[in-house]
């Protein structure tokens, strides 16, 4: 059962036109539900070779020798590539999006278990795998550092001696935000200070389609086509060109075409460049044949970039009358052996300083140290933009602890401390300008939907009977839509996105966008934006993306940035088209442009609505009967530079029952009230929230990638890395409030990540709420039955 209560902004277009606010069915589903999607492993080119990777069993070891002689005897094996081979081309290292570098293949030292050590190229996937098994690598194990705190101790082995002389430490960077002195003073002067150590474990996006590519170097024409499953194909093209230029390979950017097809899940894991991509390109370059590389599941779970691994020491001050005074957080970020996160260059810890949350107080200070350990690269997203999940988890846990310690209802405490609706735009102590919000309205709506007062009464009765029931709230503020060009770039590339709209003579249109869909439904919703702005029916708009030869440049889809940036570009490009259409309409109607008005997809002469030209009439005229001196055609391009981020928000309430004998947590109800501003397609927004809630439930209850002392990943298959299924997933109840963004052309904010950010603290707060009277004040996620049972056992209950 799913309940949706929803007061949408009323659509201004007819259902036939299908502009904003219509729950238009997803056009991409026609191919997905028929099994006719086209994923990376569906690409097979004539003469194609397969690449498979030899990976290190050790988390830290010196490579004494690599003997490929037996592998080369395996039938079908064409070549074995080692780090020494790549060193000859200067290709053994590659730059990361975070400004660090990463080994493509090691020459002498491996830094994490499952790191790429050699590549085998063969005529079939099986031969390549047999070749991998026959490569003999002799290792000398070295001391392993898996704990970032130990990595910072004096005498810890320096894992990255390749860095400069002044950087011979495992501390990658130090980053801080806010005012330390003022915050310390505010905390010292607070009636109560709540402190907690919060660990958000390493997790993996585990998209069902693993990473992969087909590299196709055409030596005759000097052209590289790279078929990929990438969330950011344009950035990949530029990075490949920069790497090639850096090592003198003749692959300039205009000769590189990155083609991304359907993507079987991205969630942040398909933003970075992985060594496999570089190896496939190098192998195609060396062999002159297309080379395919597809990871298997365990490789994906062990070697790719990971999220979280944040160790947060957070403090929150509260005055005697229950007002928050300040927040301080000191954080260790375990980034593994290479800093390969896709964070904007100036923001080492992403947007973690949004930790100030939804509350009104003057002082905050946040500091983060990035640390190298013998783990695969960390710090990459998990359906969350730039460390917002970590920040929201910390503040929402602290707020709940503070309310409980005051003996106060957590809802009441939040309502007192929210930034009031009339204080927007609101500048936070760490410098963000929240564009719009009405936090109390969202929380009150969630409380009404779930019947909060009755639940608290029920909880009191149950507690008297010894039953364990908890109610958890999370009132989050997201920061999405990276980002304004004055501060935000990835490897120097400003985080703007392009949209290119062409209206054909018969009034149909082609929209090309720089963002990349991975299931968000861009083919559906972007057409609705054009429909909204131009009155061209959404069904008449074809949306293209993912081919860097044809699509305008864009930084890709992650951090809920598509609607805030690329969606805005689409709206602005449509408005540019509309302005040209106005001039053509004036010509056709023999009227002054200033005398025309735009309603329902038509320009009409003010005061005589019958004298009108539809957008279709105008499109035809743009090619057949346009004014003298005007260029033919009806098209426009826009690159959108957002003036600010957008700040979606919401309040989630979760009700749990805990089995005293087993420690199993059952989510009885979960109400999610989201406010993502104006809504393009309500059905798709709800779909995003449902998916996001499931992906928020996952790390809250199930997912964790632990490492043993030797640096072995202990969750290398889906037997140990538990994804939620329909069995574990409760029936979500969703609701909306609508507070438009004042600066976005459509008033929209983006929603892809809200639920992943908001769900874990709601669940964690509910579980702690159920156990608070037993003296439990914090439990790190995932809230597994073992963990809860151990607590109940210790308290003499289980």
């Amino acid at each position: 059962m799913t309940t949706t209560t929803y007061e949408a902004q009323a659509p201004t277009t007819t259902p036939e036109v299908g502009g904003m606010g219509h729950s238009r069915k997803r056009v991409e589903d026609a191919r997905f539900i028929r099994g006719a999607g086209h994923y990376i492993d569906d690409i097979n080119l004539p003469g194609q070779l397969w690449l498979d990777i030899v990976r290190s069993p050790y988390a830290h070891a010196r490579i004494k020798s690599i003997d490929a002689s037996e592998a080369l005897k395996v039938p079908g094996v064409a070549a074995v590539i080692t780090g020494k081979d790549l060193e000859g081309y200067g290709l053994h290292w590659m730059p990361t999006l975070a400004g660090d570098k990463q080994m493509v293949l090691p020459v002498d030292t491996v830094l994490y278990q499952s790191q790429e050590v050699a590549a085998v190229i063969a005529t079939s996937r099986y031969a390549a795998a047999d070749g991998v098994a026959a490569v003999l690598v002799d290792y000398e194990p070295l001391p392993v550092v898996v704990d970032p705190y130990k990595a910072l101790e004096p005498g810890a082995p320096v894992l990255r001696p390749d860095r400069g002389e002044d950087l011979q430490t495992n501390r990658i960077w130090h980053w801080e935000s806010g005012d330390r002195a003022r915050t310390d003073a505010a905390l010292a002067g607070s009636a109560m200070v709540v402190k907690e150590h919060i660990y958000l474990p390493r997790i993996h996006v585990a998209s069902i389609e693993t990473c992969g590519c087909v590299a196709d170097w055409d030596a005759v024409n000097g052209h590289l086509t790279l078929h990929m499953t990438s969330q950011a194909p344009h950035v990949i093209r530029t990075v490949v060109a920069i790497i090639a230029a850096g090592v003198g390979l003749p692959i300039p950017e205009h000769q590189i075409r990155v083609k991304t097809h359907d993507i079987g899940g991205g969630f942040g894991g398909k933003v970075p460049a992985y060594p496999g991509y570089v190896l496939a390109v190098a192998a195609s370059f060396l062999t002159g044949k297309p080379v395919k590389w597809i990871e298997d599941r365990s490789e994906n779970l062990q070697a790719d970039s990971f999220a979280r691994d944040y160790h947060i020491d957070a403090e929150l001050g509260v005055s005697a009358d229950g007002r928050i005074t300040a927040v301080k957080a000191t954080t260790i970020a375990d980034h593994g052996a290479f800093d390969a996160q896709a964070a904007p260059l100036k923001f080492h810890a992403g947007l973690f300083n949004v930790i100030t949350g939804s509350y009104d107080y003057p002082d905050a200070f946040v500091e983060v140290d990035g640390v190298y350990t013998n783990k695969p690269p960390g710090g990459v997203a998990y359906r969350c933009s730039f460390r917002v999940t970590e920040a929201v988890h910390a503040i929402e846990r602290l707020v709940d602890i503070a309310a409980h310690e005051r003996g106060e209802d957590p809802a009441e405490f939040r309502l007192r401390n929210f930034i009031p609706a009339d204080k927007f735009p609101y500048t936070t102590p760490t410098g963000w300008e929240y564009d719009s919000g009405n936090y109390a309205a969202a929380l009150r709506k969630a409380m009404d939907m779930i019947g909060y007062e009755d639940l608290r009464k029920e909880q009191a009765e149950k507690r008297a009977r010894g039953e364990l029931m908890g109610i958890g709230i999370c009132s989050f503020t997201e920061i999405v839509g990276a980002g304004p060009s004055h501060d935000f770039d990835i490897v120097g590339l400003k985080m703007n996105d392009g949209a290119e709209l062409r209206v054909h003579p018969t009034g149909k249109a082609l929209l090309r966008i720089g963002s990349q869909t991975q299931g968000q439904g861009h083919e559906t919703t972007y057409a609705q934006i054009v429909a909204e702005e131009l009155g061209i029916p959404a069904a008449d708009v074809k949306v293209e993306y993912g081919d860097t030869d044809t699509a305008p440049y864009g930084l890709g889809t992650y951090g809920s940035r598509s609607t805030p940036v690329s969606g805005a570009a689409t709206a602005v490009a449509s408005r540019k088209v509309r302005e040209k259409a106005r001039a053509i309409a004036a010509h056709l109607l023999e009227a002054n442009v200033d005398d025309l008005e735009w309603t329902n997809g038509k320009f009409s002469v003010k005061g005589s609505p019958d004298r009108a030209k539809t957008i279709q009439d105008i499109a035809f005229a743009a090619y057949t009967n346009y004014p003298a001196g005007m260029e033919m055609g009806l098209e426009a391009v826009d690159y959108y530079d957002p003036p600010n981020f957008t700040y979606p928000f919401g309040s989630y309430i979760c009700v749990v029952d805990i089995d005293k004998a087993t420690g199993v947590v059952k989510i009885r109800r979960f109400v999610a009230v989201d406010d993502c501003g104006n809504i393009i397609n309500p059905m798709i927004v709800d779909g995003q929230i449902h998916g996001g809630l499931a992906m928020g439930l996952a790390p809250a209850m199930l997912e964790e990638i632990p490492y043993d002392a030797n640096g072995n990943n202990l969750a290398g298959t889906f037997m140990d890395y538990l994804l939620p299924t329909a069995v574990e997933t409760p029936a979500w109840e969703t609701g909306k409030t609508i507070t438009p963004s004042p600066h976005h052309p459509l008033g929209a904010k983006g929603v892809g990540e809200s639920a992943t950010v908001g769900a874990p603290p709601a669940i964690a707060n509910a579980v702690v709420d159920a156990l608070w009277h037993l003296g439990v004040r914090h439990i790190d996620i995932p809230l597994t039955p073992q963990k809860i049972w151990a607590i109940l056992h210790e308290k003499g209950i289980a």
Partner: protein
Amino acid sequence: MEFSGAVDIPAPRDEVFAFVTDPNRVGACGPGVESIEVIDPTHFRAKAKVGVGFIQARFVVDLEIAEQKPPDMAIIKAHGQAPGSAVDALGRMNLVDGPEAGSTTMLWAAEVSISGMIASVGARLVEGTANKMIGQTFDCIRAAIVAER
């Protein structure tokens, strides 16, 4: 992982010592051992097929008798590799008089470190599997020495 134990063998100490330091004899007791190559009196190479859960791997293991005081003590180092996995172990054996006259008690301890795919994919099964394999090995050693007598 650390393992240790004691085994009583109804044979005198020098016989037990001779058996367990002879790769050709003791090698046959290693579960899954397919071949033993003697490189020199203290260095051997074994090939063994090991299964942990649903994973099977063929390990090449280099063994070295790092220290020995016949017939009382021996220390053995092992370094084995299979595609994607590795094992490193240090074993120590002390032979003392057993409870019965003419018998020997073997006190043994091993520190085993497993890396790579087997550790990652079979983590929950590794310790149980190792225990089982160690048990099988000592049962076999005792039976073989008894049979030889």
